[in-house]
């Protein structure tokens, strides 16, 4: 008898696949697996792509920077951990060509450069993408340097004590080390020539960089070492922590896709729960018969488990294949975002998919399936012996626990999973009660309709049908609400996410930076620019200063150990002064400089009390990120060395600001009246439309000392990435919506036999097509309306929570949701239901009733 379940199971599974409910179950599982594997595969690769991109911008997966050459011991350790190393040296020096002199940032690279990506360089045959640096004896200039001292390819420029041949013009460096911090024009040379220049000497300001590329395990392995290095004052940049620029936006996209994956799984779960119910109902008779023939409870459980697991395995296999194909499509959409081929997807997402299918099946169908076990043989004789459906709370509880587990698996955060789960459970409990009440209320209201018109009659009948389905009605209402909720949430979040991005980089985002504007040129420059640009930031005065003390102690001794090598301590900071809080900045602690302080009086803070300039402590405002890194708090004092003077300041406010805004941003802002006495220049950013590009030539000739930086390329790159991620999101959105619709379809299919029976009977009693379709339409529409309403409540609450705790967006009320969801729900369910029952309505009642078959 022991091998009978296998054969029986295989045979009945084959038979089952012919029936609508099993097919619906199957499709739901396939979709769940397809969606989750596709998104898992995609996230996996997106994650790697982002890391790669960040690595490319940094110049390696790990970048160390200090003032002296790195020891061989350190190199060996890193190499043993699995890193490939590359050296870079950065310094500022005078370059000359003939009688033209220009200070420039020198970047010396070795033969390994670059670890990742390509540079865009003109080597004489137009711009090419190349993955190497200048060889010994050669140097590449950036276009600005070339313009300033009129360099042509082949010219020999004087660098320190040696001469180098210019063999290329670098339009874009593969890595962005250096970035905006340094506004000098740039020259790239080979490390082999450094010694000959004689520029690297004790006491000269030289930055040594060690760029390491290696697998994540290598990074894991050296974490302890990195901690030590940080404490020694080495600046450490780790690809996983220091994501440049796009980090924020992409992080959100990442979260969003994860969310969409979960929504798809939830949707599939709902479908599985709905179809499982019908499946079990249909199999109770079989089970009872088998009991009559002498099968034990255990054999029944085994029999049906085998069938369902078989179903799940086939479904997950097909789903995984679909998912694999789907992620390939997604990646194609993002192709230009990833410049290099990505490593092939791992197998983890595949296992995840199968696990998801099984978990969804067990979680959403398990308790219902257990009913089969309780079937008694007597049921064959007496139908009322149907085992009771499992308590609703049990179904929900088991499903919730399984879903919570998946949440944990997908989000990687247990507290988040538990919080979401508890919130969801409470919400569902409340919803169950509300569903019952709502259904009653709707039906009660409908009863009051007394009109004798065909429509009011149909509505009344439809409502009655719905009411008579009792438990099943509430169950369907709940399922549809959750479906609408998941669909609405994904749509809402997408909209808000995209508009946040849009708002972050509007069309008039500044595309030029103008620096080094002298105080004497300030007004003239302003007048030249203002009438022709679309937007312009304030002209910020800029003074360079170094932090020399924090709370009257050496900065290295006070800041957290890990921050000893922080760039803000190692380099000069750009300081500015402002009376008003700059646009886009927000005070998050303390208060902005009060307007009563005599900031604009000639004496300012310096002469306020004592005659000695240092008697009064100057209030300053510090960016919160810097404050966090350096462990600074309100009322801490900071001493700056500016132009040889020491300035003691006290932090009176902390600000948050958006570093991705393409506007001048400052770590430290002084009140007016302090820094004016030091040498300063101005910086501004503006947006220049394509038609007004002529202004640039005019500015270059009228203000030769002013440096103009075009950031269109970077801006374009950022926009590209966002556009492509947006497309990926749209695709995933579409997938989730499809999943949602197929859930509705599955659920409606599962309830179809009952409705077929009803409409067949109504037909026997003389109801016409119009009548039947109106009754059914009314029932579907009511169901859709009520579930839409509840879906809206759920979606509003859930998105608010998500925005606050996960996506870091500002929650808002979505008024249109409250209209579209109930009406759309009524329409959608009405249409699907109508379409499904079309065939039925054409059939002769003899066929739809199965007059000759079993009842």
């Amino acid at each position, binding site marked *: 008898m022991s091998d009978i379940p296998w054969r029986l199971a295989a045979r009945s599974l084959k038979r089952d696949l012919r029936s609508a409910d099993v097919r619906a179950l199957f499709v739901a599982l396939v979709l769940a697996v397809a969606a989750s594997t596709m998104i898992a595969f995609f996230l996996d690769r997106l994650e790697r792509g982002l890391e790669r991109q960040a690595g490319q911008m940094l110049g390696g997966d790990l970048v160390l920077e200090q003032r002296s050459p790195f020891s061989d011991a350190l190199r060996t350790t890193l190499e043993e951990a699995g890193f490939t190393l590359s050296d870079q040296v950065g310094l500022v020096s005078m370059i000359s060509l003939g009688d033209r002199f220009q200070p420039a940032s020198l970047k010396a690279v070795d033969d390994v450069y670059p670890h990742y990506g390509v540079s865009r360089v003109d080597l004489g045959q137009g711009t090419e993408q190349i993955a190497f640096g200048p060889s010994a004896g050669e140097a590449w200039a950036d276009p600005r340097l070339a313009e300033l001292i009129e360099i042509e390819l082949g010219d020999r420029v004087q660098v320190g004590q040696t001469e180098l041949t210019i063999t290329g013009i670098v339009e874009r460096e593969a890595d962005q080390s250096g970035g905006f911090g340094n506004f000098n024009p740039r020259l790239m040379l080979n490390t082999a020539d450094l010694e000959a220049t004689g520029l690297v000497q004790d006491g000269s300001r030289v930055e040594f960089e060690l760029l390491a590329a290696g697998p994540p395990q290598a990074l894991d392995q050296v974490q302890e070492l990195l901690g030590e290095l940080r404490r020694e004052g080495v600046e450490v940049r780790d690809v996983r922590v220091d994501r440049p620029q796009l980090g924020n936006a992409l992080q959100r996209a990442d979260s969003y896709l994860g969310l969409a994956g979960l929504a798809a799984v939830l949707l599939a779960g709902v479908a599985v729960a709905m179809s499982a119910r019908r499946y079990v109902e249909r199999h109770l008779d079989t089970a009872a018969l088998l009991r009559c023939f002498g099968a034990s409870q255990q054999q029944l459980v085994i029999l049906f488990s085998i069938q369902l697991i078989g179903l799940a395995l086939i479904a997950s296999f097909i789903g995984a294949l679909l998912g694999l194909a789907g992620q390939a499509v997604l990646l194609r959409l993002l192709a230009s975002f990833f410049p290099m081929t990505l490593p092939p997807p791992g197998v983890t997402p595949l296992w995840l998919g199968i696990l998801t299918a099984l978990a969804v099946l067990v979680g959403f169908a398990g308790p219902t399936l257990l009913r089969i076990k309780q079937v008694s043989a007597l049921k064959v004789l007496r*139908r*009322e012996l*149907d085992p009771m459906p499992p308590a609703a709370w049990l179904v929900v509880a088991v499903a919730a626990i399984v879903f919570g587990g998946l949440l944990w698996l997908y989000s990687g955060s247990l507290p988040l999973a538990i919080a979401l789960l508890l919130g969801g459970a409470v919400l569902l409990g409340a919803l169950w009660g509300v569903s019952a009440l709502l259904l009653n209320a709707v039906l009660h209201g409908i009863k009051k309709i007394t009109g*004798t018109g065909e429509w009011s*009659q149909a509505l009344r*009948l439809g409502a*009655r049908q719905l009411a*008579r*389905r*009792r438990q*099943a009605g509430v169950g369907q209402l709940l399922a549809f609400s959750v479906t609408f909720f998941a669909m609405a949430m994904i749509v809402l979040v997408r909209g808000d996410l995209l508009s946040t991005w849009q708002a972050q980089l509007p069309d008039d985002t500044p595309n030029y930076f103008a620096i080094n504007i002298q105080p004497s040129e300030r007004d003239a420059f302003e007048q030249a620019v203002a009438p022709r640009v679309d937007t312009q930031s304030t002209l910020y005065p800029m003074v360079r200063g170094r932090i020399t003390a924090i709370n009257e102690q050496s900065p290295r001794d006070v800041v957290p150990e890990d921050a000893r090598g922080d760039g803000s301590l190692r380099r000069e900071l750009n300081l500015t002064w402002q009376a008003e809080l700059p646009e886009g900045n927000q005070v998050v602690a303390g208060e902005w400089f009060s307007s009563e302080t005599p900031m604009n009086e000639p004496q300012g803070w310096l002469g306020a009390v004592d005659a000695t300039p240092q008697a009064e402590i100057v209030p300053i405002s510090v960016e919160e990120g810097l404050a966090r890194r350096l462990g600074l708090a309100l009322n801490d004092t900071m001493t700056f060395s500016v132009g040889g003077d020491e300035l003691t300041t006290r932090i009176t406010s902390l600000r948050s600001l958006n570093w991705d805004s393409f506007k001048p941003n400052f770590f430290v802002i002084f009140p007016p009246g302090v820094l004016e006495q030091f040498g300063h220049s101005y910086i501004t950013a503006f947006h220049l439309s394509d038609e007004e590009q002529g202004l640039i030539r005019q500015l270059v000739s009228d203000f030769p000392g002013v440096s103009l930086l075009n950031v269109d390329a970077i801006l374009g790159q950022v926009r590209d990435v966002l556009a492509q991620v947006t497309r990926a999101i749209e695709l995933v959105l579409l997938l989730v919506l499809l999943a949602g619709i197929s859930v509705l379809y599955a659920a409606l299919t599962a309830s179809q036999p*009952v409705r077929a*029976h*009803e409409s*067949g*009977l*109504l*037909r*026997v*009693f*003389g*109801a*016409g*097509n*119009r*009548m039947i379709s109106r009754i059914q339409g009314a029932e579907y529409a009511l169901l859709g309306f009520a579930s839409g309403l509840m879906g809206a409540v759920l979606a509003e609450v859930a998105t608010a929570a998500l925005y606050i705790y996960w996506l870091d967006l500002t929650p808002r009320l979505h008024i249109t949701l409250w209209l579209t969801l109930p009406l759309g729900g009524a329409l959608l369910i009405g249409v699907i239901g109508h379409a499904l029952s079309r065939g039925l*309505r*054409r*059939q*002769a*009642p*003899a*066929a739809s*009733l199965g*007059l*000759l078959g*079993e*009842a």
Partner: protein
Amino acid sequence: MPSSRPVLHAERLSKKVTSGERTLTILHELSLSVAAGESVAILGKSGAGKSTLLGLLAGLDTPSDGELRLFGQPLSRLDEDGRAALRAGRVGFVFQNFQLLPTLSALENVLLPLELSPRAGEDQMAKSWLAKVGLEERIDHLPKQLSGGEQQRVAIARAFVTDPELVFADEPTGNLDADTGAQIIDLLFTLNREAGTTLILVTHDHALARRCDRCLQLDQGRLMPFASSDFNAAGGGQ
């Protein structure tokens, strides 16, 4: 009182079904005319095609061939909708397998045809019919809580609740004990007598068949008269 106006007239009716490659002829060029107020019993072996015939006559199914008039209307000229409209309120049907909706209580099942053409006192009518078939105590029970015979009586109440002119009943007493069966038979013929309801019954029950105005035998796809002597030959009923 049989009148000369036929309620139902079938001519050379055929029904063929195909399953797989084989074509099965269930009914073969069968003709029948039933006058208003008449009661007709159709007998025949299991599988003879009685249920099929009843479904055809009620317009629940379409014949492969032949012509059928119900209340004077040729059914072949009506679409599914038209046939339904013709039945509405005028035809009652008792199915061999009852066809009760499992989620509806006995009362709701009986109410269903009334709701299609709303009128005052639906509830009362439905309850009184359930009382007539002896189920006044069970009106709130679901079909699966009722025995087979009880379900059958709900189906009968449902067929009669609209005061139809014509009732088709497929083995209406098949699941009933002799006593209850006799009560139901009395009910049917009282109606037939008092309201002039035309009855077309399929039955194995000779006691029932004997009370009909006419008995017909379905055999080899054809109808032929069933002589009352045959009752004795067949063993005097079950």
